[in-house]
C-alpha cells in the first residue's frame, strides 16, 4: 500500500506532443505533395489543421477528409504517403522529455506510486506510453471521461487521502479537475495549451522535468 501517488498526464508532460504532431502533420503534407497532390503546402496544412480541430485529434481519417474538403478525389496512394510519413515521424520523435526517466526512477526509489491518467482513448495513449518505453514504470492507469470524475474515481480506488495524490498535467482542465477533488495539481507549461489559464490555481507550475522533480519532491515533503 503506497501512501503517496504521483499521476502523470501524457501529452506535453511525458513527451513533447505538440511539436511531434505539428512536425508529423507537416511531413505528412510534404509527402502527399511529393506523391502528386497538386496543391501548395500552406493550403493543405491550413485545411488539415481545420479538419483536426473539427474532428478531434484521435479521428482516424484526417487526410481523407482534408482532400475531400479541398474538392479533390480521395486518392489512396497519396493518402497512404501521408499516413506513412506521419507514422514514421511519430516513431522517430516519440521520446520522453529529458529528465522524465530520472524523475520516475526517483519516485519509485522513494516508494511513491506512479500512474498515468488522461482524458484520451486507452489504446491510443497506451501506444504512446509503450513507444516512449515507460510502460513498465507505471503501476496503474486510468483513461477517458471528464477530469474531475476520473480523478475522483482514482482517489477512491487508491484508498489514500486526496491530498496525498499529485496530478501533473499540461492542460488547464487537468488542473481544475484535480483541484475540484482535492488532489494537488502541478501545471506543466508546455505545448499548445501553455497560454491557457486554469480556473483554479495549481500547487505549482513548471516548464521542464528538472523543475518538476524539484517541485514533486518538495510537495512530498522531501
Amino acid at each position, binding site marked *: 500500500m503506497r501512501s503517496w501517488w504521483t499521476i502523470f498526464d501524457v501529452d506535453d508532460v511525458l513527451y513533447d506532443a505538440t511539436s511531434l504532431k505539428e512536425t508529423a502533420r*507537416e*511531413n505528412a503534407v*510534404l509527402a502527399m505533395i511529393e506523391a502528386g497532390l*497538386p*496543391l*501548395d*503546402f*500552406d*493550403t493543405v*496544412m491550413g485545411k488539415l489543421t481545420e479538419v483536426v480541430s473539427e474532428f478531434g485529434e484521435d479521428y482516424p481519417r484526417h487526410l481523407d477528409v482534408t482532400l*475531400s*474538403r*479541398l*474538392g*479533390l*478525389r*480521395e*486518392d489512396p496512394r497519396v493518402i497512404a504517403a501521408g499516413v506513412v510519413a506521419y507514422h514514421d515521424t511519430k516513431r522517430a520523435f516519440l521520446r520522453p522529455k529529458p529528465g522524465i526517466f530520472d524523475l520516475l526512477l526517483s519516485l519509485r526509489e522513494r516508494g511513491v506510486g506512479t500512474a498515468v491518467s488522461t482524458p484520451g482513448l486507452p489504446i491510443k495513449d497506451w501506444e504512446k506510453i509503450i513507444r516512449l518505453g515507460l510502460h513498465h514504470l507505471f503501476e496503474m492507469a486510468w483513461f477517458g471521461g471528464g477530469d474531475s470524475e476520473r480523478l475522483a474515481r482514482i482517489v477512491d480506488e487508491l484508498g489514500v487521502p486526496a491530498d496525498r495524490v499529485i496530478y501533473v498535467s499540461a492542460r488547464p482542465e487537468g488542473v481544475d479537475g484535480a483541484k475540484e477533488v482535492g488532489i494537488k495539481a502541478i501545471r506543466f507549461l508546455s505545448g499548445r495549451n501553455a497560454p491557457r489559464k486554469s480556473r483554479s490555481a495549481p500547487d505549482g507550475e513548471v516548464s521542464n522535468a528538472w523543475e518538476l522533480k524539484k517541485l514533486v519532491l518538495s510537495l512530498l515533503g522531501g
Partner: protein
Amino acid sequence: MGCLDLSLPGELAVRDLRRLPSTLERTLGGAEEPARYAAERLVGRFVYSAGMGTGYRSSLLFRMGMVRLSGGEVVASPIEELPGWLPERPRPSALVVFSTTGEDEMDAVMEFRRRLPSSPVISVIDSPGSTLHRSSDAALLTAAPGGGFPSNFPAESLVGILLAYKVREVREEPPIPSLEREISRFPRTADEAVSMAEVASADWAGELRPYHVGFVVGGGATVPAALEGSHLISQAGRVFFRGYSMREFMTGPYRLLGPETPLILVGEVGGEVQSAADRYGSPVVRVGPGGDIPTPRVGDDLIAGVVHYIPLAELAIRLALERGVDPDSSLGLRVMVDEELVDDI
C-alpha cells in the same frame, strides 16, 4: 510569332515594367462590370481556381482573396493536374482560369466541362478572341504589359482580388471601402513601387551577382509574389532561386542556407526565417516597406501581395543585366513579338 533583337539588352523588359501602371489602368478600366457578372456565377459554388505557371500563381492569390473576402470554398491548383483530381461526385462547382494565351489550358477546361457540364467557367485572360475566351461563361480581360516579361501576374492578380471582392458584394456582405480605394488607386501605387524599386534593385543586383542558388520566401499573401519573383529571377538571370512560403521553408529547406545561398524575404516574414539566415550566415535582402528594396506601404495584405511583385521583377531584370544575360531574350520569357516594335520596323 518570333523574337526580334533590335533593342538594347533589357530595354523591352524595362519599358514594359515602366508601362505597368498604365497597363493596370487599362485592365481596371473595363473590369468592374464583367467582374460583377462573373461573381454572380460563383456565389454558392465550390470554386476551382487554376492556371499554368504565372496563371497558377495568380490563382493562389485569388484563392486567398476568396477565402478572406467572401468566405468562399476554393482551391487553387495547376490546371494541367486538375481534371485527374476531380472527385467522383463533385459538389456544385465553378472553374476560374487565369491565362495569358487562352489556348494552353483548353484540354483541362474541356475535361472539366465534360465532368461538370453545368458548372460555369470564368476566365481571367490576356487574349481576347482566344479559344478560352470564346468558350468561357464570363471573361475578365487583362491588358498584358507587352513582350511577355515582366509577367502578367500583377494584372491577373489584381483582377482576381476584384473578382473576389465582387463575390463579397453579391453575397451582400459589408463593403470594405479601404480595399475598394486601394484597388482603384493601384495603378498609382504600382507607379510608386516602380520608382522606389529602381535604384535599390540595381544596387542589390550587383550584390547578388556572384550567387547561383538562393531562396525567395514570402508569408501569407506575399507567397504568390515570392513564387513568381523566384521564377522571374531564375529565368531572367539563368540562376536557380527557389520560392517558398515561410511555413514550408521552415520545414526543412532552411537548412540549405549558408554564405553561398542568399535569401530574399518578401513582405512581413517571421523572425524565425531571419534567425535561421543569421545562424547559417546567409546574405539577406528584405523586400517591403522600409526594406532593402522598399515598396509603398499599403493597408490591405492582398494588395501588398501584388505590390511586392514589382521590386522582384525589377530585381530580376537588373540581376540578368549584371550577369550579362539579356532578359528580353531569356528562354520562355519573351514569347511574342511586340506589336509596336513590328510597327516601328
